[in-house]
């Protein structure tokens, strides 16, 4: 059975009740793994508490950090500082220079663009080529599509259609997430697939964007963050004291 993933739930982390409600609804909708963006200075106790809430409803929890760097230099600095502390790193690209830097950096997992301004969506051919080499994914949030109306929605759909076509052409994985800040903006995986058809995403591709693509990111990063990881394909099997006993 397919394991559905929603890497972008946006409840207020301070409000445990809201987190619990959103995570419970996620579980009812059929998601098995959720990601919640955390502040950079989040404590381990808070992470443990969130993990506990998710565990209670039978969902796996992923720590995520959204970087909104203003310059490429700042982005590099923040990546160096936070990469090993979070399982998923997303960069909200607010300028072209930051978007290009994020696309070519292998430490960046998700490229996300502001939904409200189509001029600030820098996912073009050059960006896609860089992203495909660095194996980062394009993130598409469903919430802005639901909350926007009339002309804004038309523009957003048209931009998403172009971006998804470019991503497909260059083999950049697309990750669909809810981006929901409240219960009413959350949709089930198959509803998201139907909504993805509005920007010409075929059903198998949309299903992949809701399960395999985000799952690959999480598994890859969990492996890298594990203490036994040495390099891609190389893992520590036994430590010194264990070796002596053999």
């Amino acid at each position: 059975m397919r394991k559905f993933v929603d890497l972008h739930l946006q409840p207020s982390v301070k409000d445990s009740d809201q987190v619990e409600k959103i995570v419970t609804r996620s579980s009812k909708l059929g998601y098995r793994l959720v990601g919640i963006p955390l502040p950079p200075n989040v404590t381990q106790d808070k992470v443990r508490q969130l993990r506990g809430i998710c565990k209670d409803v039978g969902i796996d929890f992923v720590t995520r950090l959204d970087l909104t760097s203003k310059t490429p230099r700042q982005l590099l600095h923040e990546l160096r500082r936070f990469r090993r502390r979070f399982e998923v790193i997303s960069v909200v690209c607010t300028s072209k220079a930051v978007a290009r830097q994020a696309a070519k950096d292998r430490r960046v997992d998700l490229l996300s663009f502001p939904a409200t301004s189509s001029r600030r969506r820098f996912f073009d051919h050059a960006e896609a080529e860089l992203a495909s080499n660095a194996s980062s994914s394009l993130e598409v949030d469903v919430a802005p599509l639901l909350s926007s109306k009339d002309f804004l929605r038309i523009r957003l759909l048209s931009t998403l259609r172009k971006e998804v076509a470019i991503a497909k052409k260059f083999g950049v994985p697309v990750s669909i997430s809810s981006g929901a800040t409240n219960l009413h903006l959350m949709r089930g995986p198959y509803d998201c697939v139907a909504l993805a058809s509005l920007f010409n995403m075929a059903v198998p591709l949309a299903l992949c964007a809701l399960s395999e693509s985000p799952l690959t990111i999480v598994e890859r990063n969990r492996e890298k963050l594990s203490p036994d990881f040495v390099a891609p394909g190389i893992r520590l099997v036994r430590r010194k004291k264990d070796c002596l006993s053999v």
Partner: protein
Amino acid sequence: MRRRYLALRVLGEHFVSKRDVVDAVWSAVLQLFGEYGASQASLTFIEYNSDRSWGIVRCSHRALEMVRASVASVTEINGKPVAIDVLGVSGTLKALRKKVLLKRQETTT
């Protein structure tokens, strides 16, 4: 013509009547796909239980994704925030009722 039956559940904090749901779904279809698209959907409301906020909609099997997207795009009814979930889809009413009932039993246990 092959048909698909969709079981819907309205999630909201206020009372929503059948007429409200029908209007909301129809206007969502019209907004997203226009009159031409709506004419291809063969959309019909079979039943709606306002106490349980639960209903059944029928559409053409070719228009399933279209209706699903429209239903998912409903975010408010009478200015109040709501979400409409699709609980299940089936080719016959009998199978749909069975499916939804099974799902309910699974969630309660």
